[in-house]
């Protein structure tokens, strides 16, 4: 039966990946023109003939790694069987600025391929190999952040200034709109650092979300002060400084668009939908390893900052939740202190402290799940595992931190996730009560 609607096809894909015995994993690399249209495609098919425009190359091996960071999130390595030298790192072949879109997918029950995008990348660290019986080209693929952080592009030739009261998202968009040829704003899509329209959170666009600075109400999507980045820094430094003002998540998503998400929404991970449930009896679940890392656990986070009028601001979040295994009452007060000039109000320090506490107090229980390949999982989403090895068979929820998928047809996928069950209810202590008044 032909699967016609996108919903039918997606449901069929879910059925297929749930039964890895039936699944034929697919990998596809689309080589993009400067305007992001597809120039040509290669995949795992080695049966191409000579004389065709897309050469006899095919994807032999590789891996895709995704991790939840502010900045570089996606990286992959890929090895081509490069029989006709079409994939050497040379001008008119693969050269600076060439983008590729990576897809993973599976063959559906009607025999058609179904692909899910995994990211848009640039080529880095080319390596070619020649043996008597093979000729290969191996590349590290880095996501488009590499064009901001100086890896492939992005060093500042001059001091970069974002004036006070500038819209943060407009400033971010402004960086992407700069021409790679003269570092000036351009409307030419093919010259821009990144022509894809970024996806920004609208959380801070609410006119009611304001901070009070020197008695003046300033909307949270505006820069509270001038952000200056020294020359020799990178566009990524500017992006991260702007992102730090809203304490957001910034990075490139699987479709190749820059995405900024609010961390304020992020506090309630428990309420996110579960995108995959693993059980002991399902064929997708190969095993799970729990890693304990007590050295990196903190249950007391103090964030210091500096307001625009020079006053000290700060906040402290403490895990005193009696249901948490790492609360202050159980293991003592393990304090983490960070000071940064970019935090400018108590409220913002509190948001950051709460966010840090959430991460730092759960790190001791990160799990690595080994499973069959599936391609719709994304970082910062929830998976659940039915722990039939524990009394009462609890269902444990985990927030995906990192994913590693092999690009070849065989091989297991690894998911690193942290437990969300353990997120405590942070107790926020205002700066003046505790840090200055000594009342703990």
């Amino acid at each position, binding site marked *: 039966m032909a699967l016609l609607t996108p919903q039918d096809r997606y449901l069929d894909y879910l059925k297929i990946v749930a039964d890895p015995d039936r699944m034929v994993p697919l990998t596809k690399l689309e080589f993009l023109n400067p305007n992001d249209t597809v120039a040509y495609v290669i995949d795992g098919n080695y049966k191409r003939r000579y004389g065709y425009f897309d050469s006899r190359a095919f994807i032999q091996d590789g891996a895709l790694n995704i991790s939840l960071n502010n900045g570089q999130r996606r990286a992959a390595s890929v090895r081509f069987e490069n029989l006709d030298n079409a994939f050497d790192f040379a001008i008119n072949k693969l050269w600076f600025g060439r983008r590729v879109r990576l897809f993973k997918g599976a063959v559906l029950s009607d025999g058609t391929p179904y692909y899910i995008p995994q990211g848009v990348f640039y080529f880095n660290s080319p390596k070619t190999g020649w043996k008597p019986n093979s000729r290969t080209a191996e590349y590290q693929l880095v996501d488009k952040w590499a064009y901001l952080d100086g890896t492939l592009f992005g060093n500042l030739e*001059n001091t970069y200034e974002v004036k006070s009261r500038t819209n943060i998202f407009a400033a971010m968009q402004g960086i992407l709109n700069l021409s790679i040829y003269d570092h000036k704003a351009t409307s030419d899509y093919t010259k821009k650092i990144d022509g894809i329209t970024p996806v920004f959170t609208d959380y801070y666009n609410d006119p009611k979300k304001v901070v009070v600075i020197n008695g003046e109400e300033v909307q949270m999507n505006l820069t509270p002060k001038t952000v200056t980045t020294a020359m020799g820094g990178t566009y990524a430094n500017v992006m991260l400084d702007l992102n730090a003002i809203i304490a957001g998540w910034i990075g490139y998503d699987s479709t190749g668009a820059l995405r900024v998400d609010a961390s304020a929404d992020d506090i309630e991970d428990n309420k996110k939908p579960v995108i995959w449930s693993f059980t002991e009896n399902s064929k997708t679940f190969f095993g799970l390893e729990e890693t304990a890392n007590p050295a990196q656990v903190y249950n007391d986070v103090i964030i210091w900052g500096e307001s625009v009028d020079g006053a000290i601001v700060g906040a402290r979040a403490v895990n005193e939740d009696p249901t948490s295994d790492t609360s202050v009452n159980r293991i003592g007060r393990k304090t983490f202190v960070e000071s940064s000039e970019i935090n400018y109000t108590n409220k913002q320090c509190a948001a950051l402290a709460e966010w840090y506490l959430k991460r730092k107090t759960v790190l001791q229980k990160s799990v690595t799940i080994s499973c069959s390949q599936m391609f719709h999982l994304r970082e910062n989403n929830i998976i659940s595992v039915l722990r039939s090895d524990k009394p009462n068979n609890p269902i444990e929820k985990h927030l995906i931190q990192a994913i590693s998928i092999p690009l070849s047809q065989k091989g297991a996928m690894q998911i690193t996730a942290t437990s969300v069950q353990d997120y405590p209810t942070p107790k926020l202590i205002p700066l003046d009560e505790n840090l200055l008044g000594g009342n703990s």
Partner: protein
Amino acid sequence: MATYNEAETIMRQLKPIINKCIENHPLVKSAIKAQKAVVQAAPDTSAHTVAIKFLPDLFNADIAPMTFPYNPNIPTGDLTVGKTVFVWYYQSLSNGVVMQNADWSI
């Protein structure tokens, strides 16, 4: 066995990460850095700010002068147009303060 080329590749990949770690080291992060600049306009004495351009920015006419607060104890003669001054900052240039005269000769 890893070859020299592989070691080179790994080193190249690790370099930005190591630089980031060094930058984020508490000692380096809290260190005060200084950058030379040239005064572009007479200081605004009510707002205690002065418009300056950093040295390499002088060669780029598209870069507008940037306004920074100045040290109240700096002699007024050091803030005249064309004088070279030091901007001190920690963590980020966003914290910069025009601190002192940079016309030193040793």
